[in-house]
């Protein structure tokens, strides 16, 4: 299903970029759950046409 390669999430770099602080134990548990996040992302990363655009807010003719 995936046609866009998933890039591993750079956890420490992203947390630092946001200014988020974590201890070593939290970092370990985060790494485990990031694997789930990456799997979910692989499920999402497929090419989609205009037919799947989330443009509800711009359906001005219904207002």
């Amino acid at each position: 299903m995936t046609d866009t390669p998933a890039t591993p999430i750079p956890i420490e770099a992203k947390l630092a970029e946001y200014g988020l602080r974590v201890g070593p134990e939290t970092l370990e548990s985060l790494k485990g759950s990031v694997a789930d996040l990456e799997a979910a992302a692989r499920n999402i990363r497929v090419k989609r046409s205009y037919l799947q655009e989330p443009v509800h807010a711009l359906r001005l003719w219904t207002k």
Partner: protein
Amino acid sequence: MSAPLHFMTVADLAKGIAAKTVSPVELTKALIARVAALDGMTHAFIEVTADLALAQAKKAEAEVMAGISRGPLHGVPVGLKDIIDLKGVRTTAHSHQLIDNWATDDAFVTQKLKAAGAVILGKLATHEFAMGGPSFDLPFPPARNPWNLAHFTGGSSSGSGAAVAAGFVPAALGTDTGGSIRLPAAFCGIVGMKPTYGLVSRRGVLPLSQSLDHIGPMTWTVEDNALLMKVLAGHDRLDPASADRPDPTPEALLGAGVKGLRVGYIPSLGAQADATDEVQSAVAGVATTLADLGATVEEVTLPPLADFAACGMMILLSEAFAIHEPNIQAKPELYGEILRDRLLLAGLIDASDYVGALRMRTELVAAVAKTMSRFDIIVCAATATPAPVITEIPKFGLFSKPPLTIPFNVTGMPSLTMCCGFSASGLPLSVQIAGHAFGEATIYRAAQAYEAATAWRERRPALEGAAPMSLAAE
């Protein structure tokens, strides 16, 4: 024999109040006393608004005695999840972050309840900001399941589920972003409805994920739920998601039976949703009962739960992070560990994946709509197991063990959970019934027919005499 006052339904209380055989003041006093006596075990309430409630009850009683009727909630006590604003009272979200957050106005739904003459008995426990729990490092303890105090209530409307099951209030409001009304309703053996997206205004309620958040009622019976929904639903021009439609009539089909109703029965939502034999058997029993009552039942499948979970959780976490980003950066120590760490995970999501999830949502909505075109309602399990032990809830299970309720947050369709039996250990089992957008009346029709054909409403948790869980376990 009639039920004791604290276990009377909204519908029966309404009849009693109208007939002047039930006093709103005496009812309110009785429930305040019951909470004072027993909620030390369940922790359903964050705050009992006794003075306000008694004033509202006195006003309601005076109006009833003067021949004024405001409908079935007139003089009936109701609880609010503590992310819903009640003017002059704190909205804490069960968090140190908002420990002094005093509401300056009522939420739209609170206004609706007050206009209907309801008595607001207090603010109820939640998972922190409707996302982090059950947690033991917050300003208030987590709610416990009245059926077994060692067990989880489900969340995030945990106090609402516990309070209704325990007979502290006949009805409560919850909110639902991935299942937060329906899961505590399931684990606590009550009825919870997540309405169609847009049916109930969210104004004055703390947001978690704007495109997935819903507000709805939690009650002991289906009829009570429909009565509450009738009051809550309606257009609010100040909530941009609010549907501008004619006044809904969710109660319109109560008592109509299910003869001819087209029911899609989903035996499994996929590998991640493997339910215990007890749950599978109980939900299959619902399908059988509906067929026996005259519905046509056909097995059906939906896209895998993993797809809904990937899409829904990606949206939920991204939108939640957008709300909490300033606080998670500036004062993370004021969050409990569970929410803080879930928000850290949310901060790792790429913008491209959030956009991808929004686009995937349109595919899932279309796929479910195609399936639903053949049915009036679909029936599946609400949870894979009965309520687990409260200390055994994983911090990170959002993707690996997603809630079976999230498909209907993603699609925005209405969905109700209700008791459909009990486990060998005496915990409630629950079924989920979903319907077409703005098809709440049809869901209530089927749910009430099932409820009337079974005896599950005759059993109540017995808190009197239960031993409180030791604080050490907390």
